[in-house]
Structure formats: C-alpha cells, structure tokens
C-alpha cells in the first residue's frame, strides 16, 4: 500500500464517523413514535396500490450496456492521453494519434450501427 492511500483512508474514516455522529445526535434529539400509518409506503396520501414490482422501460437496460462500452473506452483513453505529451515531444504524435484513431474507430462503427438501428431513440 502506498503512502498516497493513507489520506484517503483518513477521509473515508472521517466521513463515516461524522455521518454516524450526526445520525446518533438526531436519534438522541429526535422523537421515536412509530405507528402503523406512519410506516406505510408513501403514495400521495392514498393507500398504496399494487406492489413495487413495476415494469421497466427496456431502454434503461440499453443505456447501461452503452455506458459499459463507452466507459471502458474512456478508461483506455486515459493512459494514452497521459503518454500523448511525451509522444509529441518525441515526434511520434502522428503515430499515437493514428493508433488511438483506429481504436476509437472500431467503437464508432458500433456507435453508428446503434444509432441507425434506432437504439438511441427514447420512444
């Protein structure tokens, strides 16, 4: 474990402790009087109808898939972006750009396909 991780652990610990502290404070100061009406699910004042097993629009699933693809692509772009500056300094910028261009082009082909298939329409 590197020394850089220690401050992060400190921040996580502080955040967790502070939130527990405030929650404890509110539990101590606030009332606790549960009743059956209060603990029902809120549905604009009327008794809740049907269960929460609602159907989801299939587009949500598609968005998740697209996100996975593009997010991975972004993750691969970052190391390349870090090296790009030194590639420019070495005069290999055109090579670096072409290489990443080819990588992105593969994804863009898929992207265009999804677009033409209507995968990006929210209807």
């Amino acid at each position, binding site marked *: 474990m590197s020394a850089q991780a220690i401050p992060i652990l400190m921040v996580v610990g502080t955040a967790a402790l502070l939130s527990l502290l*405030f929650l404890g404070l509110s539990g101590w100061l*606030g009332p606790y*009087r549960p009743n059956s009406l209060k603990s029902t699910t809120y*549905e604009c004042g009327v008794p809740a109808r049907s269960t929460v097993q609602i159907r989801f629009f299939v587009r949500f699933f598609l968005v998740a898939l697209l*996100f996975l693809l593009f997010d991975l692509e972004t993750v691969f772009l970052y190391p390349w972006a870090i090296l790009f*500056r030194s590639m420019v300094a070495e005069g290999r910028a055109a090579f670096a750009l072409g290489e990443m261009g080819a990588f992105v082009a593969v994804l863009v082909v898929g992207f265009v396909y999804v677009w033409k298939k209507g995968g990006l329409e929210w209807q």
Partner: protein
Amino acid sequence: MQVMTDLFARIFGDGLSSLGLLVAGGLTMALIMALVMASCAIVFTWAERKVAGFIQSRYGPMRVGRWHGVLQPVADMVKILGKEDIVPRDADKPLFMLAPFVIFVGSLMAWAAIPFAPGFIAADLDLGLFYIFAVSSAATIGILMAGWASNNKWSLYGAARGAAQAVSYEIPLALACIPVVMITGSLNMNDIVIAQQGGIWRWHFLHDPFLFVAFLLYFVASIAEVNRGPFDLPETESELVAGYHTEYTGMRFAFFFLAEYANLFLVSCVATAVFLGGWQPLFGPVFLPGLVFVIKAVLLVLLQMWLRWTLPRLRVDQLMHVCWKVMVPLALVCVLGAGIWMLATGQAG
C-alpha cells in the same frame, strides 16, 4: 496535505515518524475538508433560495438572523436534527439505512483530491482526476440503493432515471477532460493547475478552440451528473414526489441534501482546477491562492443556480438525445481535435 505535514513536523520535530506525520496530516485535512463541505452546503442552500427568490421577483428567506435570513440554514439544520427517523415497514432496512451513507461518504471522498491551494490538498494522488471520477460514481450506487430499498414506486422510478442519467453523462464528462490530460501529461490535480501558470491565456479552456468546447461539454455534463435543473428528472416534484429520496426523513434526508450541494461545489471545483486555472489568478503572480480558487468555484456554482432557475426541465427523450447524439460525438471530436492541434502546433503546453 503538504502544508499540514510541514506544520506537524515543525510542531513535533522528530517526535513523529513519517507514517505518523502522514496520518496526522491526513486526519487534519480530512476534518478540514468535512468542515468546508458542511459549511459550503449550508451556505449554498441559503444562496440557492436567495437566487431563486431574486430570479422570481421575491425575497427568499428573510426572517432568521436579521440580515436577509442568513441564519435560515442553521435553523433548518437544528430542526432536521430534531426530526424522527422513519423507516417504512416495507423497506429493505439494511439497504435503506446504508444508502445515505454511501452517497455522503462518496461525496466527501471525492473532495480529498481537490487542490484548493499549493500543497493544500487532502490526498495528492498521481491519479487525482481519475480518482475523482471513480469515487463520484459511488453516488449512482447510492441512488440505486435508496430507490430500490424504499420499496416505493416514486423512489424506484426516480432511481432508475437518476442512474441512467448519471451513467450517460459520465461519458461526456470523462471524455471532455481527456484533452486536458493530453496537454499536461498528468492526472495529478496539482500538476494540472501548475501547468496553467501565467495568466488567463494559459488556462486550459483558452488553450485552443477544442478545449473551449470541451469545457462547455464538461460544464453541461456536470450539471446533469449532479441531477440539477434543467436536468433534474430524477427528482421531478411534479411527477415523482421527490424521486429516490421520497421515503427518507430527518437526518438521513439531510445527507442526500448535503451531498447534493457538496457535489454541486465539487464539480465546480473540478472545472476550476482542470479548465479555469485553479488557484492561478487572472494575471500576475500567485496571491491568496485559496481565495482565488474558491471565488472561481463559487462563481461557477452561482452560474449553475442561475441556469437551474431559468431553464425549463428537459424531457427524458431530450435528455438522452442531448447526451448520446450530441455530447458524446462532440467530446470524441474534441479529443481528436486537441490531438491534431498539438501535432500541428508541435507544442505540448
């Protein structure tokens, strides 16, 4: 971090090992960050109500604290502390109770890598920018947890929308920062700010036309990322009551609220550090770096508030259209364009 470890080193001399220094410095910085986060959230709730008031030709809060209701957020905090913490009978209790923590802790964790001033950064990571993106996506998990565990239709719809929106806009958000990484050759937030030394013309958003577009893309995507108007579909009060935090009360609700305003400031801080020169002043040498940084970030926050109270909410199909058909292709063009620009001008900085 550096400031704090130096301070502790001066106080304790050789009494502390390097690990001890790291822990002590980290702990102090973490507490400062938590304090800054809480106070900025408190100030911004007041500012938001004032801005909304003035935009709608009214005053906003005026009563508590003599001058323009400045103590209103304090009164709200006290009131919220005294409220009952209700867990609905049908809720998935462990998840329901955990969700606000995930959002709150995730938000504070991202704060660790914000460079407020030279050496004043809780965690000076080599992966700084990447770390911020990674950690702030914890909010998506928190949103889904809250919506699912509430066992309430409004919450679940709100959570599904929130997650879809957050993951969609994360793509242009992350892509828009790549040109900056290409120019600086580093993900370290300190390095990114130092690379912008020497007046406004050296700030990244004026580096070349592609970076200017990238800055605009980042700004729009960041508004959507923190679920604020005109992208506030996950919590449309007119159709989903309050979205994913419908069932939350008292302090747990306050965590969502705090995290929203903390994230609002966080994305503005990242925009400031990455595109707007961080603590570097408009011209001349560095002076009062922390103040310069905060002023820039607060101006961005005020701009976001102005947008929220001016623009009507988008429809969900428009939301996805803007992201996938406009911003993602544009961001890719920006990456390519910035690369060609660097190639053509033959300069790296």
